[in-house]
């Protein structure tokens, strides 16, 4: 499994921080997912080997936490909060807007490969509901108009790259 030098450096830096190696499972999985876009079974075995664990123990962790995924997603990761306050503020409509703007379905990769739109559980910003994460950025106080603007922004960024 080929990992970028920065990823390997990040991994080597993370492991000694913990009194017990096994604790480094999550930081390693974060680093590898960032590097490769997903966590394959090969990655699970690699991490297991690195930390002296069994592969099943790593797979058990990967499949427990929703952020760790074993499938590819679009280039941009959209997560719309669906828990009560955001739902009351119209989060479902925001999500629908995101889906329709990219002509895609929930949890799918959009036809242009640009986004995957998922629901997320409470993102801890209920006061500015509805909210969503676009990759690492939190967008607050959304409505369908703002959602469209964000979609336009994503599309223009896609063209630039």
């Amino acid at each position, binding site marked *: 499994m080929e990992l970028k030098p920065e990823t390997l450096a990040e991994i080597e830096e993370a492991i000694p921080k913990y009194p017990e190696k096994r604790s480094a499972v999550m930081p390693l999985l974060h680093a590898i997912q960032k590097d490769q876009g997903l966590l394959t*079974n090969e990655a*699970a075995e690699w991490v297991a080997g690195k930390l002296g664990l*069994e592969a*099943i*123990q790593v797979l058990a962790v990967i499949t*427990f936490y929703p952020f760790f995924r074993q499938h590819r997603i679009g280039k941009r990761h959209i997560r719309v909060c669906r828990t009560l306050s955001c739902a009351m503020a119209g989060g479902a409509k925001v999500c629908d807007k995101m889906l329709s703007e990219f002509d895609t379905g929930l949890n799918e990769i959009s036809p242009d490969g640009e986004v995957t739109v998922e629901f997320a559980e409470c993102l801890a910003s209920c006061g500015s509901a509805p909210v969503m994460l676009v990759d690492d950025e939190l967008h607050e106080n959304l409505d369908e108009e703002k959602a469209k603007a964000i979609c336009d922004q994503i599309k223009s960024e896609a063209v630039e790259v």
Partner: protein
Amino acid sequence: MEEKDNLITVNIDGHDLQVPAGTNMVDAAAILRKEIPHYCYHPKLSIAGNCRMCLVELGMPGRDRATGEPMLNEDGSPKIMWMPGPAIACGTKAAPGMHIKTDSPKALESREAITEFLLINHPLDCPICDQAGECALQEFSSKHGRGYSRFIEEKNVKPKRTRLGPRVTLDDERCVLCSRCVRFCDEIVNDSVLGFTDRGSYSTLTCFPGKELANNYSLNTVDICPVGALTSTDFRFKMRVWFLTEINHIDFETSVGANTVVSAREGKIYRVTPRRNDEVNDTWMTDSGRELYKTVEAEDRLTACSVAGDETAATEAIVKASEILQKGKTAIVGSGQCSVEEQFALKALAKSLDAVSVNLVARYGEDDGILMSVDRNPNVRGALMTGLIDTLPEERLEDLGSKIDSGEVTIVLSVKEDLTEAGLSEEQLSKVDIVYLGTHRNATSEKADVVLAGLTQFEKSGTVINQQFRIQKFNRVVPGPRGCIEDLHALSTIAANFSDEKFPSTVGSIWKQLAGENRQFSELSFQSLSDQGQVLDSSAFEYLPFREGKSLHFEPKRESVAAE
């Protein structure tokens, strides 16, 4: 370990009980013959506390917060402060004054609730599930369940009938996620190959793709699985357990002598499972040891006696064998696979025949530190204690070989041992007359002048002595083939032809003689021997270089000699 006299008093459903401090309350209740139903608790595994079936009401004697003094009722008895919510009995260790209620309305309510929850996603598989008849979920549903279903939603779907390993089939829908199998693999076998993936109600037991549950203890997970999720591929769909008769037996695989239960119906064995013995094997046994029941109906089973290759009735074969043996210059090759009684009879026979040499064949393999010792004979110590031999046997019969070459030995009586495997050459075999008493065809039986078809350990009763010098008894499970003869009967009949005295021919009667002649056996009888066995005085043999290393309940007394 708590000292035996560190006893405290707990109260279960109004009954006082004295137990060692720290006793698990599920076990404490069992002493009073009260069953606290449970799934995930297992006395030999760590506490998981996840099934929640063992919820009981729990109370402790109250102490005044300010003064620290015990709070008392009006009648002077300690005031019990009951916890507002139920507590798991398996996670509760006995403490002085502890009170639990196992059959109060609250406790019963909890059980009904948990049972309902376990059943809502459980598939309606009883008619096709092997576990039926020995299924904890069936039992407890019947005892503690609501009796009707309120669940009208769709049940979760998970992988069914997957191959978890070469001997284990897994049905994930039936799994109640008790984690006994995971804990077993982690803690007992140190092979952490099982785990749960996904989360919540979608959690699924699995191996890593490409890996398997293949260790030599994989079938123990089937034994401890409280439902029909983990099943034995060998036993699958073969027989309903309520038809099976269960007989206590001993595993002959190695000198560990794991306690077993052999299940059979109408003369056919269907499976072997471990039997609990906290001094020998806990609740476990090897997978390979279970396979031994297949020798009963193996292709190469000797099903009839023969003389010079021709099938003969047993009585005639014995007469012929005696004729051969009385010609003189006999060597006896006994076996660590024989029972104590057979070895005792063999010793008597050797004496009557004035045998030139008496041998046993050693058999060694790798140990695993758990329940497989290096000694692949279950009963070498029986031969020592009966006096059949007085030193540890060799793997190869070199001494016998040279005696044959020199003409000192012209007749060999071999019981259960293939002489060519033990190192004798074709040539050497041709130099002697051979009487073979055994159960399966081999090079020796092919060359033998008389073949006495004997019985496997499953077809007779007896005792064996394991590495701890513990004598343990096994009982007949199925009758042998019609043309076979019971080994003890054959030996004693032959012996009778050479002696004025009648030699006892049954296990029961042989013990009278054993007890009379051997100091170590003096207080024992086959009847009275406990199913958990008894450790004998081995001081006379301590100097011998036994090779067994550490296993689950065995510590070698001295540095074990490395196996060659």
